[in-house]
């Protein structure tokens, strides 16, 4: 069980790429790495999940927390590159209606 988190943070535009598994063991690391970024005023945060092979509901908790933190700092939060399985997770939980998971990785990041 391993996770790699790649962060590019330039002028409150945070581009994050996550690789590996997000579960109860790796979620704390993800939260610790990304939370400080989400607390910048007007931050634009894009998290690319295309190389995430597994995510359980603990991971979902991290993203909801990030989303709320970004929103309370008047920022924008997007998730890109979701697999079918991940998409289903966001659909079932109703999160797809409040978090942007539908734009593609390139759009607006650069």
């Amino acid at each position, binding site marked *: 069980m391993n996770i790699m988190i790649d962060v590019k943070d330039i002028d409150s535009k945070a581009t994050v790429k996550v690789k590996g598994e997000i579960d109860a063991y790796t979620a704390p690391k993800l939260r610790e790495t990304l939370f400080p970024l989400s607390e910048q005023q007007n931050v634009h945060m894009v998290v690319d999940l295309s190389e995430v092979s597994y995510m*359980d509901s603990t991971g979902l908790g991290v993203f909801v927390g990030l989303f709320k933190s970004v929103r309370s700092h008047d920022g924008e939060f997007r998730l890109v590159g979701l697999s079918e399985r991940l998409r289903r997770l966001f659909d079932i939980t109703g999160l797809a209606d409040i978090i942007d998971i539908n734009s593609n990785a390139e759009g607006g990041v650069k």
Partner: protein
Amino acid sequence: MESRENLEEKYREALSNYLKEQTEQALYQGQKYSRKTIEHKISPEEIISFHKSTLMDTYEDLPDEVLHSLDFLLEVMMGYGIAYREHQNLKHLQQELKSEIEIAANVQHTLLGTNIPKVKDLEIGAISVPARHMNGDYYHFVQDENQCVGVAIADVIGKGIPAALCMSMIKYAMDSLPDHRHFPKSVLESLNRVVERNVDPSMFITMFYGLFDPETHIFSYASAGHEPGFYYDADKKEFTDLTAKGLLLGVEKKTQYEQYEKYVAPGDMIVLMSDGVTECRTSEGFIERKTLIEFIEKNMHLSAQEMVNNIYKQLEKMQHFQLRDDFTLIILKRNV
């Protein structure tokens, strides 16, 4: 029990034997001795001082360098001695924590306990197994004065003790709902406000709430982001997803939930579960919902309780008896 002096004596004996004759047998004494020192909490540096005094008593003309080197070694081993004692203390603490958690798990079990009610025309089976000590899943049955039965199944996002504590709050909130308001939609809306106000912002709860009316045989339900269950239509012999849209509890204060209704015909079944059921991982990947339906079909001739017990056992076996997530499965079956 052997005293320390005794152990020093034993060391002297074992070492002298080995110095006289280097046999396997004599060497083996050393191995046995080391187990004894652990038992009696003799530190590594103490053993070196036994060694030194034995040498000094045995050989009169021992070079000073050898003795000095032993003093040096003793100093070096001191660190190991401290680490060893710390390890012992931690082991003890861990034992204490473990028994505390076991007690907490028992308390939780009592707190969250629910009885499966007797309902006209409806058979109910339920099972809930935590992956670790404490369960982050929760199910609950309530029967109101009109004999309608409410069923709640919930899963805290997060595992272990924090999740379990959170569940106790949900249970308390459900108990304090007014009796006349057990409509699924309003139950979820009031619980959502409780969770939103009280729980840590990165902790969320998924919940499905259903209400069965034994007079009209209508099952009404609503879901807050919960893993969809199945509906079995006995007439068509067909399973469909029991889909209901709705956001997780605790994300947005003013979430409204949609309520759905279904007429439950004789032989029909409602299957509810936590995501621990569909997130069962086997060596070949996740269990597909299709596989789960096959399991249900295979056990359909049994009573509702036997069904959930059997399905759990089969899924547990597929995962080599290692649950990754808490597991809860409920089956409601209308009698024919």
